[in-house]
């Protein structure tokens, strides 16, 4: 195979996309920080319209995997396919522009800008900033009340809503969420995952990485366990839930 495969994905059959073809696929992905390899051949696929939860303890390589997928970290081996096309060399900006959106761990908002300015920053993708704002306020009415407030002074849940709203500004087909629940109260986490479930119903494929399984397994169609830089289990949320304690505790 050449370094880049310019061949587009085979055309979907009439009447919609082939549900058997993954929208995002990682094949034997390796990635490293300097000489330390953290992904040792990750295989994972996300089907159109599905919510896939990737669970695993700290240091399993979950965030690195997402960064590789979003074009933020280079691969040292393997392939990433997006919509059937090999995208190993794609920049994060290009992937975001076409509709693969990463909401990073720690929210990634601009704390010194207001909510409104943060949303307007999403306009660089070519979307009308006013439409972006309206859509965000419609989805998250609480942000409308805080539109003139500095993003850094919002509560954790509101900051996460802002990060989600900004990510959704690009009208993504694939939403990649990294530790959505980090530092948030359980009620807020439930509310946020409620929104994620709504997005999935709208046809957005969601890949979500979490350490805390309970809520995310409630909205996921499939789940996977990641340990030591590899995906060790993939299955239904019920199957994965039963294997979680063994995975976390090494039983």
């Amino acid at each position, binding site marked *: 195979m050449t370094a880049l495969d310019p061949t587009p994905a085979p055309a979907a059959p009439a009447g919609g996309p082939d549900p058997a073809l993954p929208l995002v696929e990682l094949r034997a992905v390796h990635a490293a920080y300097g000489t330390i390899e953290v992904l040792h051949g990750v295989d994972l696929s996300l089907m*159109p*319209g599905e919510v896939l939860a990737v669970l695993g303890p700290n240091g399993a390589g979950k965030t690195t995997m997402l960064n590789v997928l979003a074009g933020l970290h280079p691969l040292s081996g393997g392939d990433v396919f997006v919509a059937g096309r090999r*995208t*190993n060399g794609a920049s994060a900006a290009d992937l975001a522009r076409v509709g693969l959106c990463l909401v990073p761990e720690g929210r990634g908002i601009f704390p*010194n800008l207001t909510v409104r300015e943060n949303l307007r920053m999403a306009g660089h993708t070519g979307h009308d900033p006013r439409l972006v704002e309206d859509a965000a306020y419609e989805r998250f009415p609480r942000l409308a009340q805080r539109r003139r407030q500095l993003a*850094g002074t919002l509560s954790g849940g509101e900051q996460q809503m802002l990060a989600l709203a900004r990510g959704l500004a690009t009208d993504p*087909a694939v939403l990649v969420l990294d530790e959505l629940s980090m530092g948030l109260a359980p009620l807020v986490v439930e509310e946020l995952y409620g929104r994620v479930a709504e997005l999935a119903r709208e046809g957005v494929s969601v890949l979500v990485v979490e350490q805390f399984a309970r809520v995310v397994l409630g909205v996921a169609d499939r789940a996977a366990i990641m340990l030591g830089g590899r995906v060790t289990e993939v299955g239904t949320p019920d199957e994965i839930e039963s294997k979680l304690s063994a995975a976390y505790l090494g039983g």
Partner: protein
Amino acid sequence: MSDNNNERVEKFKAEVAAMHLRDPATGLDRLLVRLGVAGLVAGPCFSIAAWFIAHGTRNPLQQRDAIVVGLIGVTLAVVGGALFVKGSMAGFLRFWMARLCYEQGAQTDRLAATLAGRARLEATGAAAAATADGRATDEEERASDDQGATRTG
């Protein structure tokens, strides 16, 4: 999936198919920086060589050639310098921007914490003042009641 959802996936596939991908193996940025360094080194060498050529002859045609070589050297140095600065600044600014974002974030967090602390203090102060006022009013009322009772008695 509904038609709308199919449409979203189809649109995504079309956009990914049309996306211009750069081969990461070519390392274009690194190549440009190296070319810049080469230009920066080769440019002055060309100019020095041109000076020697021009000085070594009285033939005007050869001297004109030397001027051309000299100008090529200057051009190489300028273009090389621009490429080098572009490559280095891109790397530096990326780091600088990330650091700026982080520092501003940390500063806003500190400011928010200070404001929250101040608001808490003010609230506590107001509550204490209100309690003190309440106590004073109670005492005044009690005193006036006592006086009234004494007069009646």
